[in-house]
């Protein structure tokens, strides 16, 4: 199994969810984060104080999938999150050692978005 972590623009969150839904990926959690990935820093002004906002708001998606589902997931995340401008975000894939579904006690592949049924 793999854990797919994607950092995306907050304004693309609904598009990413839609793409994941279309790809029949059912389990996902998101977190609002702040990050910096090489995009232009913007300047804001509060009365006399000008500040350079180094960190931009981002949203982190975490999706645990079985190996066979990995490419579909990555594809869906890219489709949903891409605008073509700097700051679209990144996807990190890491190996998962063990997964347990708390409700049923199912483990590993049975506990994540299942292998694609061909």
């Amino acid at each position, binding site marked *: 199994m793999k854990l797919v972590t994607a950092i995306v623009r907050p304004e*693309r969150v609904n598009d990413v969810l839609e793409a994941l839904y279309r790809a029949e990926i059912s389990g996902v959690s998101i977190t609002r984060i702040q990050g910096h990935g090489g995009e232009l820093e913007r300047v804001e002004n509060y009365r006399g104080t000008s500040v350079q906002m180094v960190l931009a708001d981002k949203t982190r998606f975490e999706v645990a999938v079985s190996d066979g589902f990995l490419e579909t997931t990555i594809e869906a995340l890219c489709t949903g999150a891409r605008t073509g401008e700097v700051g679209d975000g990144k996807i990190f894939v890491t190996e998962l050692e063990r997964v347990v579904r708390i409700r049923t006690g199912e483990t590993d592949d049975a506990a994540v978005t299942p292998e694609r049924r061909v």
Partner: protein
Amino acid sequence: MTGIDTGDTAWILMATALVLLMTPALGLFYAGLVREKNTLNTFMMCLAAFAVAGVSWAAIGYSLAFDGDGALVGGLDHAFLAGVDFAPREGQTIPHLLFFAFQGTFCILTVALVGGAVVERMRFVPFLAFAALWSILVYPVLAHWVFGGGWLAARGTLDFAGGVPVEMGSGFSALAAALVVGARKDYGRQALIGHNAMFVLVGAGLLWFGWLGFNGGSGLGINQAGILAFVNTVLCPCATLVVWFLLDYLRGRQVTAVGAATAIIVGAVAITPAGGFISPGWALALGGVAALPCYFAIQWRPRTRVDETLDVLAAHGIAGLTGMLFIGVVASVSWNGVADGLIYGNADLLLDQALAVLVAPLYAFGATFLLLRGIALVTPLRGSETEEAQGMDIIHHGEEAYPTGEGALLFRTEPTRREEPASV
């Protein structure tokens, strides 16, 4: 100051302050209904009304509305406050200057109301241009028709505190503005919901409070009509709340808070034209009646392609229209000393009210439509999809409503200038 009544003047000073409060209250109400990233921009559209309409009213708007008794529009003799001083206007007991300021707060509020149709996407500078022109070309004309001795007033159409210029004027202009500016990105595809229901509730409460000056002050003194309007403004929204609760409960077995805030606005709007003309009992009835068309308009509108975002048409246009017609049915001389309505044997009044309800929306819609089309020839009304996605606050104001402060570095050079989009 000869001819001045101190009691009347004291109350209208207070009422002017109350109406002034309604514009920032509306800012709060509107800001709660938009997404986080557009909070400041939405509030700023309301504050902008002070900047443009406050000045244009002194320069020319007041004169166009209240100078002379031309049928369609007033004259220019009061332009730049000429002849507006401490002596009262004919038939009034408060200083002319105070009357000017009281009416000015109405114009400012109405301009802010129209902004509700185009929040979350219209560029700020074109909005300023629109608001300035609208406050000269639309509001004063409608105000003249019913308050300044224009053709509707001459026919006998009754409008106590602004059903024509404020409520129908803003509501039908909002529809035109929404059509010209177009729907928000992702409208109808994704749920675009408000970010702070508490702002909406507090805003509605402050609006109601201010409305007591708006309607209660429209008697221009301490008199029966003013007192009646004040009390009716207390009663009418209460009845609207009752019916709104019922409709909400029947529809989803839940009574919503944002719905309640909307009901308060709808009730106060409905009583605005009718305040000084109908009995308190009929005011309660009006509150209940007005809830019906407005409730269904608000349920139906988001299912259409018309992104009239904050439902100014439903909450103001439709409610104001209901109030205008209601006067024609239930007005009674024993309460208002002016005219009876249909149920007291006078059908003519209803015809005059119906005429206003037909013509005022047409003028507001048509003038706003042409005005915005004209501005669009000079400069684009909205920015790119990317800008809209980032939010109006960062793009047009360089601020956020809720900055975290994390990752914010002190910056010592001049702020950068954003590139303007190319004209289309």
